[in-house]
């Protein structure tokens, strides 16, 4: 297709995906408050709009109008840059995630993905690695010992669990033979024995899924691995000194990371957009995106369910789990997958 049309469709796709992602971040916060509330035998937000559905809008307005304090003696350039780094790299990795097959508009076939890089998985790993800087620099520049400790612990935790994250993905890579996310999903098409779908989680990667799940909880600093930002431990960890819009950016970055991790788990282990297709052609174009959304919702619900249920690890338990249990487990998963595929 001509270059101007390619640029136009890319810009439109980016705008749509970014809008949907930011709305999804806001409503993930709502979902978490409702689900954790119900688990704790209370209602969650109910007053603003029906079922509290306008609560994210109220929260957004609150963040806009709150006073934006900058404490004295902070290292100003990094204090301002750290939430920007966190949020920019949390939103960037959505660029290579495919949402469905190609749709055909006006004779051109437009893939439902902003760009299909053939090393897409490596790009997501790289963006995750750079996102550690937002946390570390926020903790250091705040000139506050709780923030510094929280920042150091959080960045040490994120760097340690990145290894297990990468290794758990290599099992999937061996089975599909390509780094491109679209190829990985296409390798999971079809069924075993007619009704069990050929998703990687049923195709032998259950240990890989477990390792990925644990590493993802640790990478996104969620319970049971959320010591760096626990309120009872370190005031609020690395974002203690942040208020209003900058805090909102850290908040958005955390939930955007959760959504990215959920998208990646869906693509790599749960079969992406594959699901039962039925109905007329227009429905068949939308149903893959719907199945993708359902799987992401299930994964996010699992995240929130674990948050409402488990207590948090102590820091030395956390690091021991990452290095002494999860890393050998993902290595053994890798070796077992490699042997199984080589035969």
């Amino acid at each position, binding site marked *: 297709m001509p270059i101007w049309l390619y640029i136009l469709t890319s810009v439109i796709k980016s705008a749509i995906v970014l809008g949907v992602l930011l709305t999804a971040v806001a409503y993930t916060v709502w979902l978490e408050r409702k689900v954790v509330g119900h688990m704790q035998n209370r209602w969650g937000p109910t007053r603003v709009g029906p079922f509290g559905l306008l609560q994210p809008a109220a929260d957004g307005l609150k963040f806009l109008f709150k006073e934006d304090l900058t404490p004295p003696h902070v290292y100003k350039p990094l204090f301002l840059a750290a939430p920007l780094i966190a949020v920019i790299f949390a939103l960037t990795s959505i660029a290579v995630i495919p949402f469905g097959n190609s749709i055909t508009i006006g004779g051109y076939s437009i893939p439902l993905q902003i760009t299909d890089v053939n090393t897409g998985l*490596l790009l997501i*790993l*790289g963006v995750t690695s750079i996102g550690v800087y937002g946390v*570390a620099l926020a903790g250091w520049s705040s000139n506050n010992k709780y923030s510094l400790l929280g920042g150091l612990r959080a960045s040490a935790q994120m760097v340690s669990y990145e290894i297990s994250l990468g290794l758990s993905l290599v099992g999937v890579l061996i089975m599909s033979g390509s780094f491109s996310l679209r190829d990985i999903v296409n390798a999971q098409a079809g069924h075993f024995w007619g009704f069990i779908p050929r998703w990687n989680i049923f195709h032998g990667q259950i240990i890989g899924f477990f390792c990925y799940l644990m590493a993802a909880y640790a990478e996104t600093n969620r319970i049971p691995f959320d010591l760096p930002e626990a309120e009872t431990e370190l005031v609020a960890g690395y974002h203690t000194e942040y208020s209003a819009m900058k805090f909102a950016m850290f908040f958005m970055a955390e939930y955007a990371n959760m959504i990215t991790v959920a998208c990646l788990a869906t693509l790599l282990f749960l079969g992406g957009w594959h699901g039962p297709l039925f109905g007329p052609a227009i429905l068949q174009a939308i149903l893959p995106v719907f199945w993708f959304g359902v799987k992401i919702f299930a994964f996010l619900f699992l995240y929130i369910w674990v948050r409402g249920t488990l207590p948090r690890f102590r820091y030395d338990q956390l690091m021991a789990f990452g290095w002494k249990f999860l890393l050998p487990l993902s290595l053994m998963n890798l070796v077992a997958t490699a042997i199984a595929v080589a035969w």
Partner: protein
Amino acid sequence: MISVHLILFLAFGAVALAGAVNLLAQTHPINSALSLIAVMAALAGEYLLLGAEFVAAVQVIVYAGAIMVLFVFVIMLLNAGIEDRTKGSRVAVLFGIPGMLLGSLLVAWVLLRHSGTEAVAVGALPGAPKTIGMLLFHEFLLPFEITSILILIAIMGAVVLASKPPTAPPVEKVSD
């Protein structure tokens, strides 16, 4: 002849040079560390222009995302401050910066004069992970295994060197 390749090369090269010069010019190590991260990101862009996509990804993941995090971590841990100017450092700056400029101008002049116009196309390298994997595990298997042993030695060395020296247990007083 201005092409998109040349413009992108100059853009990434300018960022890399600005980062390198900024590393020299800044006094606080954290600013130098961030400039070095910018240099590495610009170099990853250069590798992509040459077609080495796997090397570019590994540069971002390993170099900018892990090694530099280690540097930033140590700077935060040791609370490194602005470095002070001593007599030795003033002498070094006086002689070092013109010397470095002279040296690099000489190298650049020799390279640009004697090279001719052999050009490197965009994406000239087959940098797919598969080709690199085949090379790494067939022809370069021995260096690969030796570097893995090297990493093991480095891990053990780092753990031993950075651990606190063992303190003697306090002598227990026997009370009657």
